[in-house]
């Protein structure tokens, strides 16, 4: 259980963040400069809150009321920085050994061979840090943190300095670690697709405040999210399982509580849990199911709410049974179809529009 309830000042900037979770991955999501890094720095003991409490698994790291403030080296927190921060005067091997050698053998719970296997580090042990690619650097940084046998792994925008291919690579490693090591993680990001893919518990941070927190699936569908993701990225998340693959057409069919989604083939076995994010702008509405149309996903839904109409666009909140979905349509369309809360509609989602990057293994 990670418990954070802190207040702090950074110049004129006030940070006030509170959340508690025992989810495998807690994500702090918000724009750059929202104060996310300050929060992880406080957990790591690098920045000191003016007031509050931080505890991991009941072990208090910071408590202003009781005057507890453990130094970073006694917090047992693994920190993976955005730019890796490998020690430039040491080889990969020595970097990895740094934290490991400072951890008494009795407290080590992650074996070196296991970490090297998981992160694919065997081949680069004798290299210098300057001979590494961005993805390799980040993998070494993760390995170095893991080998100090931390009680939690903090990752501050670990993908920010990587190109798209390396990002996908590191994301897979993070998922692998989550599944293999059962080590709680705090993942900081301003990229909605990373958060959608990884987070179990989501904390939205805006202007230094935690404005919403809760299970990721729930928070990702909240309207508070859209100012943070930008209008174009607003959307809903549906928790699904892979039902089957249509090999002939290269499609995957995902089943959720109230229906099915079809999307281009994804690399997952039937039965695996998958989280699919559907952007509001990719959802069209019809009053009747279209009969001869290319659209693959036609979902019967009920309108819950229509956002206030400013300008040309409205957001229509829907429920497919109990599953929320958001459709972004023109105000003219809403008027033409006489849409109102309670109306039954058909939500049309093109299979190819589902954001592949955000489809993750939950």
């Amino acid at each position, binding site marked *: 259980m990670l418990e954070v309830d802190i207040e702090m000042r950074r110049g004129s900037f006030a940070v006030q963040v509170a959340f508690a979770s025992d989810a495998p991955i807690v994500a702090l999501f918000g724009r750059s400069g929202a104060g996310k890094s300050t929060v992880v720095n406080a957990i790591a*003991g690098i920045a000191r809150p003016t007031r509050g409490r931080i505890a991991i698994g009941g072990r208090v790291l910071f408590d202003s009321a009781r005057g507890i403030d453990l130094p970073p*080296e006694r917090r047992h927190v693994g920190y993976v920085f955005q730019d890796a921060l490998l020690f430039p005067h040491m080889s990969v091997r020595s970097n990895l050994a740094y934290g490991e050698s400072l951890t008494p053998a009795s407290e080590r719970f992650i074996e070196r061979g296991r970490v090297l296997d998981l992160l694919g580090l065997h081949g680069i042990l004798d290299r210098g840090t300057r001979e590494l690619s961005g993805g390799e650097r980040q993998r070494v940084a993760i390995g170095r943190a893991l080998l100090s046998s931390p009680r939690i792994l903090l990752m501050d925008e670990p993908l920010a300095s990587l190109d798209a291919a390396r990002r996908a690579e590191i994301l897979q490693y993070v998922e692998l670690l989550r599944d293999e090591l059962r080590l709680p993680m705090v993942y900081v990001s301003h990229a909605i697709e990373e958060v959608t893919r990884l987070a179990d518990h989501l904390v939205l941070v805006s202007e230094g405040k935690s404005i919403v927190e809760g299970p990721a699936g729930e928070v990702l569908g909240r309207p508070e999210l859209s100012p943070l993701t930008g209008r174009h990225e607003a959307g809903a998340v549906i928790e699904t399982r892979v039902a089957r693959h249509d090999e002939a057409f290269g499609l995957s069919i995902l089943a959720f509580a109230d229906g099915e989604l079809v999307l281009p083939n994804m690399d997952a076995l039937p039965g695996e849990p998958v989280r699919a994010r559907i952007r509001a702008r990719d959802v069209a509405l019809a009053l009747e199911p279209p009969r001869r149309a290319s659209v693959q996903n036609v979902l019967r839904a009920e309108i819950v709410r229509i956002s206030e109409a400013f300008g040309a666009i409205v957001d229509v909140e829907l429920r497919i049974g109990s599953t929320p979905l958001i459709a972004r349509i023109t105000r003219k369309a809403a008027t033409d179809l006489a849409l109102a809360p309670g109306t039954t509609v058909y939500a049309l989602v093109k299979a190819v529009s589902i954001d592949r990057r955000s489809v993750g293994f939950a």
Partner: protein
Amino acid sequence: MPTAAELDIVLLSLKVALCALLVSLPVAVAVAFVLARKDFPGKTLFDAAVHLPLVLPPVVVGYALLLLFGARGPIGRMLEPLGVVLMFRWTGAALAAAIMGFPLLVRAVRLAIEAVDPRLEIAARTLGARRWRVFFTVTLPLAMPGVITGSLLSFARALGEFGATITFVSNIPGETRTLPLAIYTFTQSPGGDEAALRLAVLSVLLSLAALAVSERLVRRSMQARHA
């Protein structure tokens, strides 16, 4: 080839300069770290005091040492019962050289420490290292080229130290007559020109050798970093 007498002078100079470096290095590294990484009231004043030997006339520094470490000086009187006498001894020459080279050493080490990304130190701490271990395993190794450069500067400064030395420990053959003092003595005695020239050439060779050694050390520490 240098004569035995000349060799003695060179060896004495080397002994004085090396001792000066060994004594001042740990202090200088500590002072450089404090100046590079810490903020405290009076830091500007402290910084100025460290740089004082660089701007004061060396004779003034020598005179101050004489006042402090002399037989009647406050520190000299404290040290005397312990059997430590610096005045008119080669150890006093080493102290004078150490103090004159100190600002050069601090400056080079401080610049090198400032160039070390402090976030690397933070990373080391999150991995479980205490401050002192972080210093010796991260900060100092990364600042090593600066430490070596500073050592060379202060060593060369010690080899050439004249004013503070002659004021504090006088010009005693075999005890405090280092290369510069010997050269000066020969230039002051009739017919000493050739001897002065020979010593001057020796002193140039010595400085070049020190430069070559430090270049090698810097290159080696850089290579270690790229390895």
